[in-house]
């Protein structure tokens, strides 16, 4: 779309000044002043100042409950506010003067892009790009400290896998699951139940190797997903969000209160993964690197599998549901069953990741908090819903930043930024940083009144006639 409009502009050799400024600098200055001090411009100034104040609060010192306005005072009525006001002013100049600069920008872009587009348009073989990224991912741990590699497993890798699963729900089926981490908890506790006699109070008569728990957890999480999704999805897609939200909280509550799960103490001593097959005896121990490579292999496999799923009959049916549920139903797509399938697939990936996590380390109910679910949602949204590579990149960027800034931003404050990121993405770039082409097109079509780009509407089979 953008390239077709840019190609005709290629012949323009010398960038001519924008057409609306015959008088040169003076006229430009007048135009700028008019843009800045118009009603709209002053409004933008107000918004920018508010953004600056919010930033000042976000980065400011922590407050005390005994002194409700203390933090606000230390953050805003202090010399540091000058920095944020300058940021606000710069932002204002950028926003208000953008209409004046746009002609220059698009011209420069056209000149720069013109000759290149032809080559770039031959769609850089995605395979090459993916292989390059894979090689980077393989050699990466060699350059990092042990703490960083541990984080690459616990923080980045596990969440990338979770995001890939949630992407099926949000990206492919267009629904929202806010209790996603509950299935992760199911996977983790299942592992503790089946692999050890001591990890939690309840245990299976025979201790299994964690590898055998993968299919069990996979199935259990899927069953939980179906049980939860079946009554909900029949009705309205948006109810699913709140039901899963409640479910996530319930699972944590049960884990915390039941004596079978060891309550708040959590599970200790779940055995590590190990292979005893055909004379190979290998076990994963405390070193994070083997886990990293195992996780990487799983992520790559899941990405390949989901890529095939996306292009399969099922994937196309999901796309049809997102774009127009009623039409899909009318052409014979079993919408309810497919939505349920997406939800169950998402859940089972989460359960699968739970096994991996549990066999690596100690866990307690704290880990399966609501915020963890929201973090996965944030990663999917930031990365780009519907794009497998995008959600992995989302995990790498967000969790990487979290690790990089771990000394500067306290872990509890991270979620302020995640919340802000989600809102900003939804306002300015709902398709994410690495958008899926199809999803992006759907969103923009929906904004022009064609289709829905999600499957939250009431299903055509529901009792909408009863109103």
């Amino acid at each position: 779309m953008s390239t077709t409009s840019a190609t005709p502009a290629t012949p323009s050799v010398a960038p001519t000044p924008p057409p609306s400024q015959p008088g040169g600098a003076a006229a430009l200055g007048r135009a700028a002043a008019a843009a800045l001090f118009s009603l709209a411009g002053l409004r933008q100034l107000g918004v920018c100042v508010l953004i600056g104040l919010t930033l000042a609060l976000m980065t400011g010192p922590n407050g005390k409950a005994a002194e409700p306005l203390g933090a606000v005072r230390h953050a805003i009525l202090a010399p540091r506010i000058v920095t944020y006001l300058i940021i606000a002013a710069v932002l204002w100049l950028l926003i208000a003067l953008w209409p004046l600069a746009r002609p220059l920008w698009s011209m420069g872009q056209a000149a720069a892009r013109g000759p290149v587009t032809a080559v770039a348009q031959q769609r850089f073989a995605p395979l090459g790009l993916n292989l390059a990224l894979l090689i980077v991912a393989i050699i990466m741990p060699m350059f990092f400290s042990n703490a960083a590699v541990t984080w690459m497993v616990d923080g980045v890798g596990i969440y990338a896998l979770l995001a890939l699963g949630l992407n099926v729900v949000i990206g492919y089926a267009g629904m929202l699951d806010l209790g996603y981490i509950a299935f992760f908890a199911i996977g983790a506790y299942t592992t503790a139940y089946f692999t050890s006699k001591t990890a939690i109070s309840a245990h299976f008569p025979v201790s299994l190797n964690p590898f055998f728990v993968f299919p069990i957890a996979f199935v259990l999480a899927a069953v939980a997903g179906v049980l939860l999704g079946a009554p909900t999805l029949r009705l309205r897609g948006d109810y699913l969000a709140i039901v899963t939200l409640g479910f996530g909280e319930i699972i944590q509550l049960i884990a915390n209160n039941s004596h079978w799960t060891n309550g708040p103490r959590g599970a200790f001593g779940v055995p590590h993964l190990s292979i005893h097959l055909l004379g190979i005896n290998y076990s994963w121990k405390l070193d994070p690197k083997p886990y990293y490579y195992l996780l990487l292999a799983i992520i790559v496999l899941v990405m390949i599998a989901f890529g095939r799923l996306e292009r399969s009959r099922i994937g196309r049916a999901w796309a049809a549901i997102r774009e127009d549920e009623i039409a899909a139903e009318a052409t014979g797509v079993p919408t309810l069953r497919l939505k349920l399938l997406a939800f169950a697939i998402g859940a089972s990936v989460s359960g699968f990741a739970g096994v991996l996590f549990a066999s690596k380390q100690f866990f307690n109910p704290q880990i399966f908090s609501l915020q963890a679910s929201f973090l996965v949602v944030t990663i999917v949204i930031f990365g780009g819903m519907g794009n497998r590579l995008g959600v992995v990149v989302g995990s790498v960027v967000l969790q990487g930043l979290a690790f990089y800034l771990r000394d500067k931003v306290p872990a509890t404050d991270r979620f302020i930024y995640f919340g802000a990121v989600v809102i900003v993405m939804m306002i300015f770039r709902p398709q994410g940083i690495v958008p899926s082409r199809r999803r992006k097109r759907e969103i923009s079509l929906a904004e022009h009144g064609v289709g829905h780009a999600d499957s939250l509407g009431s299903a055509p089979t529901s009792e909408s006639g009863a109103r």
Partner: protein
Amino acid sequence: MGFVHQFWQLTIDGLMSGSLYAVIALGYTLVYGVLQLINFAHSEVFMLGAFGGLFAARELVNNFSDTPSGMASVGIVLVGLAVGALCGAAAAFTLERVAYRPLRKRNAPRLAYLISAIGASLFAVNMAGKLWERQNVTMELPFTNGTVFHVFSAEVNTKTLVIILVAAVMLVLLDTLVARTRLGQSIRAVAQDADTATLMGVNVERVILLTFIIGGLLAGAGGFLYAMTFSASNNMGFIPGVKAFTAAVLGGIGNVRGAMLGGIVLGLVESYGGYVFQASYKDVIAFLVLVLILMVRPTGLLGERLGRAA
């Protein structure tokens, strides 16, 4: 002590929490009426109102050397309610402007609204945690909490009475507002059909904003009542929020009287259920009610009434 013996006490407790759920549920149901959206950040409106009201009332209580009484108590409760309601309204206003309106301007898909509301909720919860610590904040009651009267074997204390009375007044006011005023009429018109309402001269944007603000006023005042009796904390909104939504669905989403009924029924069910099962699993009951309703009677007790008179 058997269930029969405890029955009236459980009923009173259930009515108390139920009337709070009803007050919060109205915010969900009103917004669902005009936008057909679950406002996920409504629980944070409740939380911010709770903090605002609590801080204001605590400031006043601290001026007294002993527990205030008489008109002073009434005044402090009223100030707390007013400040809580205003904070709630301000939060709801900001929420609508930041997280909803830019999306509405662009006619974004509904998924986008849900997600940006989650973002707003995440932001508000953690910002409050940063500003006012991540722990329970309590205040001393602005009145002496004694037994006022007995209902059969059950004691009704001042705290419970204040909550039930204030909630009842708010519910009646809201019902009148929606059923009888011009604003209520335009809210119903927008809920029925926003496009037609525009053609009839209703300023839809304004009605949406006012709906958020009304929901915020109620949730904020409810938040103060909650904080006064229990405590306030940055993540306090979540569980009452899910329960209030359950109440709204239970009564029939979009149905104002349904939300009130749903709240009270849910409060009672939870109170009895919490006695029969373990108290620590009390929160599970509301969730089971939600799933059961969705399976058995998804339109709620009084039926969905998007856009009809309350």
